[in-house]
């Protein structure tokens, strides 16, 4: 197995950093190496951490005000003139309100526009349901030409942001608000479109994206103490999905659980199911939001309330293993 260089204390005592910091820092690194990169903000510059880019490269930062539709089509125009624009705002706004702009103006023409989609998931916390993007992956991954990446932690968000500039065409990078465990390091491999096996296992596979990768690794520890060997896959790129790694896992473990901080309908779990049911059907369980809105609260309490903790993954894995035997 190749060297993963995961963070040593990743599970026991992880360092905690918000993924959005990775977006902000990734943009600053990109700004240094690529003069074509420009960043657009819609009055949420510090929340999206794009103030870091704005302060480093003021002449390449464009404020459109609270006008997300204009921002998306404006970015299309910038890309038509050779820039690599990163539009940045909360997921509900940049993928929801500006969906038609993303679909018809950006994606139809395969324009080189990148979408920094923040505040993904219920872990947004106190702002409540209006600000918790739970449908963004579903509604962007169904648009042709669009790449959708849901990085697991700070380091991976930083790498995904830098990688996005080298992918030709629209890329959505989905990240969150709150501090989450940093499980990878600068040296951990990241290739867009390539899922990584973070832990080998033979009884069941847990494929996860975003901060659910951490929860899955914790779940694997618990499962192991119960005699179940779980394979953990970090499937950060939801589209194009790494079918090969998923099909191999289904063949070798015979049961699959998906874990996402997003609606299971149409989201990452659905994407995995689309691959497996057509290639190698095995019992599946989906951990994620079950057709409901979020609410205000402490992020950790919300994760528990909506069934997004390691314990929920353990339960789903045990059920999937049982289904395989039945």
């Amino acid at each position: 197995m190749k060297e993963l260089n995961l963070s040593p204390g990743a599970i026991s005592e992880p360092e905690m950093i918000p993924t959005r910091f990775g977006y902000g820092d990734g943009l600053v690194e990109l700004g240094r190496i690529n003069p074509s990169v420009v960043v657009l903000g819609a009055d949420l510059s510090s929340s999206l951490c794009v103030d870091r880019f704005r302060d480093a490269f003021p002449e390449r930062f464009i404020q459109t005000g609270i006008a997300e539709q204009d921002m998306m089509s404006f970015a299309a125009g910038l890309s038509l003139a050779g820039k690599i624009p990163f539009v940045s705002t909360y997921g509900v706004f940049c993928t929801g309100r500006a969906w038609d702009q993303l679909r018809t103006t950006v994606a139809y023409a395969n324009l080189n526009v990148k979408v920094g989609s923040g505040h993904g998931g219920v872990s947004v916390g106190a702002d409540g349901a209006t600000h918790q993007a739970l449908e963004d992956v579903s509604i962007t991954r169904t648009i042709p030409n669009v790449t959708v990446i849901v990085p697991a932690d700070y380091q991976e968000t930083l790498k995904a942001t830098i990688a996005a500039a080298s992918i030709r065409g629209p890329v959505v990078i989905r990240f969150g608000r709150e501090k989450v465990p940093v499980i990878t390091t600068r040296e951990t491999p990241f290739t867009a479109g390539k899922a990584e096996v973070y832990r080998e296992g033979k009884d069941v596979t847990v494929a996860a994206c975003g901060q659910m990768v951490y929860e899955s690794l914790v779940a694997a520890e618990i499962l192991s103490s119960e005699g179940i060997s779980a394979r953990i896959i970090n499937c950060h790129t939801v589209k194009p999905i790494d079918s090969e790694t998923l099909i191999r896992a289904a063949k070798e473990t015979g049961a699959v659980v998906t874990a996402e901080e997003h609606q299971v309908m149409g989201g990452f779990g659905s994407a995995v199911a689309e691959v497996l049911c057509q290639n190698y059907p095995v019992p599946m369980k989906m951990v994620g939001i079950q057709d409901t809105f979020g609410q205000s609260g402490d992020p950790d309490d919300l994760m528990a309330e909506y069934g997004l903790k390691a314990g929920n993954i353990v339960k789903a894995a045990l059920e999937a293993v049982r289904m395989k035997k039945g």
Partner: protein
Amino acid sequence: MEEARLRHLKSMALAIRQDIVRMVAEAGSGHPGGSLSVADIVSVLFFDVMKHDPSNPCWEERDRFILSKGHACPAVYAALAEGGYFPREELLTLRKFGARLQGHPDMCKLPGLEASTGSLGQGLSIASGIAMAMKMDKKNNRVYCLMGDGELDEGQIWEAAMTASHYRLDNLCGIVDRNGLQIDGCTDDVKTLEPLSDKWRAFGWNVIEVDGHSIEDISAGLNRFRHSHFKPTVIIGHTIKGKGVSFMENQAGWHGKAPSPEQTRAALLELSQEVI
């Protein structure tokens, strides 16, 4: 304007109108009304004002034209073909299976198109983005964006209007085809647009009103745009929807409908009798 140039632009506008009627008739569907109303504006832009090179559609130094009201693409396809971007015969493939001339513009298929449009309300933002990039790169290319008047119902137009004036995009020229009609009827019955010039002025734009069927007037307006500074310009072109084909003129019903074979013959006959 010198006589020969005026005659040339008028004859190109006429050729565009004839092409529009033939194309939409052959396709059996499409949007004749709003295509005919922009024929004169498109003629002046493509055959006089804009820097572009049909033999090199991606020429870096070209001016850019965004058709925000994408449904009027027959007018632009006609101008591109008459200008030599592709063979005129291809015009008759409009809206057919496998055609590069899609029902609404697809920039990936047809050279000469600068954006894929058809979802109304987005063109001015796209054009502003291009104009902004030109400013950032210290280039002096100009960007033109043709909008419908009904299209101005879209909130995004006014978001773009604020953004463009905020960034003083004086290399950007919006053109409104003020034909007074949209699908459900008169623009001011559907939703009050007037006082339209005041609205644009209030948004920080330089406003020029022209007769959208007078080649001289359109040229003069575009010339004033090229000499204005610090503000984006909008040219409000007063037009007649369906212009040139009397039974289509001022009829909301001819927004999105193809003429029958008899109607097509009558329309082409009328256009052929136009005196230039």
